């Protein structure tokens, strides 16, 4: 386990925000971080469900040893008009010099309507909301994060929770695939522009979460077969294991900024 004092990424005085922290991978990441964030750190968790966030906080506090400050911010990334207030809350009270590290993990994400093929996506409002939640919010929040933690005094890390869907066209997943493809490319541009920022797109693999259960019950046989095959190969991970792998990658700090890495090393792009 990383010693808080040695870790450059999670050491003392680390600000860390995790979106979608109310369940699934977001919760696992938060709990794994709890054991590693050093003294004087702050963990901000966002999500739509206050109840979910509170449960995550409970698990985090059980695990943390440095009286970690945990802040909860409820909000819906679908609503762009709510961003200024939401982002203000996430990044509030950051005093200059208070933090040595700043880390943001864009984990919140939605699948979109998996019953629809691309040819059936005729409602522009639904599509606009989809890209607001999965793309626009991520960009605007990253911009705000970079603004609040500007300059070279703070070591900055930005993580994009991505998916193999970013590079593999999957039936019924035109929105999910395109949103992830867009995010990956966006973060590659960020990495080009800001060489001082550590940028990582991480494919966590198929995880045993509510999101996966939704995918598996979408009614498409091809999709069902694919996940059944993965299950029989032992490829469906616990989110805790995937979260641990992510934090190991961040701690080892060997990745090329902007890289897209997979939990199973199925690709490294």
């Amino acid at each position, binding site marked *: 386990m990383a010693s808080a004092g040695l870790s450059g990424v999670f050491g003392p005085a680390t600000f860390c925000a995790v979106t979608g922290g109310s369940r699934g991978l977001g919760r696992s990441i938060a709990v794994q971080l709890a054991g590693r964030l050093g003294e004087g750190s702050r963990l901000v968790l966002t999500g739509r469900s206050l109840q979910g966030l509170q449960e995550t906080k409970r698990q985090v506090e059980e695990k943390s040893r440095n009286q970690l400050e945990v802040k909860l911010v409820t909000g819906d990334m679908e609503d762009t008009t709510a*961003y200024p207030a939401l982002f203000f809350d996430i990044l509030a009270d950051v005093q200059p010099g208070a933090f040595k590290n700043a880390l943001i993990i864009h984990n919140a994400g939605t699948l979109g309507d998996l019953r629809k093929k691309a040819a059936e996506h*005729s409602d522009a*409002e639904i599509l606009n909301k989809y890209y607001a939640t999965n793309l626009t919010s991520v960009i605007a929040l990253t*911009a705000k994060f970079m603004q609040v933690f500007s300059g070279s005094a703070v070591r900055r890390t930005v993580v994009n929770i991505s998916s193999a869907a970013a590079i593999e066209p999957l039936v019924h997943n035109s929105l999910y695939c395109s949103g992830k*493809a*867009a995010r990956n*490319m966006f973060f*590659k541009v960020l990495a*080009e522009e800001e060489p001082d920022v550590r940028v990582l797109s991480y494919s966590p693999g198929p995880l045993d979460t509510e999101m996966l259960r939704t995918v598996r019950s979408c009614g498409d046989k091809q999709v069902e077969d694919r996940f059944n095959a993965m299950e029989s190969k032992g490829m469906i991970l616990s989110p805790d294991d995937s979260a641990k792998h992510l934090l190991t990658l961040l701690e080892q700090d060997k990745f090329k900024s*902007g890289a897209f890495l997979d939990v199973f090393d199925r690709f490294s792009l």
Partner: protein
Amino acid sequence: MASPESAQNTSVLGKPTFCVITGASRGLGRSLAVELSGSLGEGSRLVLTARSLSGLEQTQALVNKTSVSVKVVSGDLEDSDSYHNLFQGIFSDITPGVFQHALLIHNASSLGDVTKRVVEHRDAVVLQKYYTTNVTSTITLTARFLQIFPSCDVTRTVVNITSSAGFTPIKTNSLYCSGKAARDMVFKVLAEESPEVRVLSFSPGAMDTEMFEYYRTHVGDPEVRTLLCRLAEDGKLLKPEFSAQKLVQILEENSYKSGAVLDALGRFEH
């Protein structure tokens, strides 16, 4: 993989074709209209759409109307509330059975604010508008197009005008790069889901157009600007007519793998 249309005597373009080109008021869109008008079969209809009605009318004047009737419909893809009316205008007066081929070319596109680095993209409303214009519009227009021309008697072709920016990160181009990446992926999924539809993403290369000129003079990153200026100075910019001809050639040959991303100069194929 979709099997190519059995060409026999008439290439797919030579059939009576209903063809929509977005962003047809200038640049590549205009060139595509002109090139296609010379290739489309007797009884074809070309529907041109863009924001600028005067630009569309100029394109209309240049188009070869021997075999093709031309209709212009102005509208703004940034305004998704107006899509219903815009699509109605595009797809009006279609008598069933008249067209044997339907071709939709998503050419309209915007660069976004290329003066800005990621850290400066703080206005969510601006970002939303960007993805509405460049991604959402193409999905909903495609859905409507495929609804209007169901598969039975009509061959359908959908073209996504893209860019190497879809897979090459370029500084101050976070919006353009991510938008193209999203589009390319949407069309790959479409190709997987609908094997009876011919789907092609086509990268026309850097061309001598107003869009390029705007890009060259406004791009925020000095290295990128130098590169673009050099392209222009060295005479390496393609003429939009050239890129349009390349696309028409590819469509006529009709042997591309559905969902592929092809380059005008053959520099890559995804």
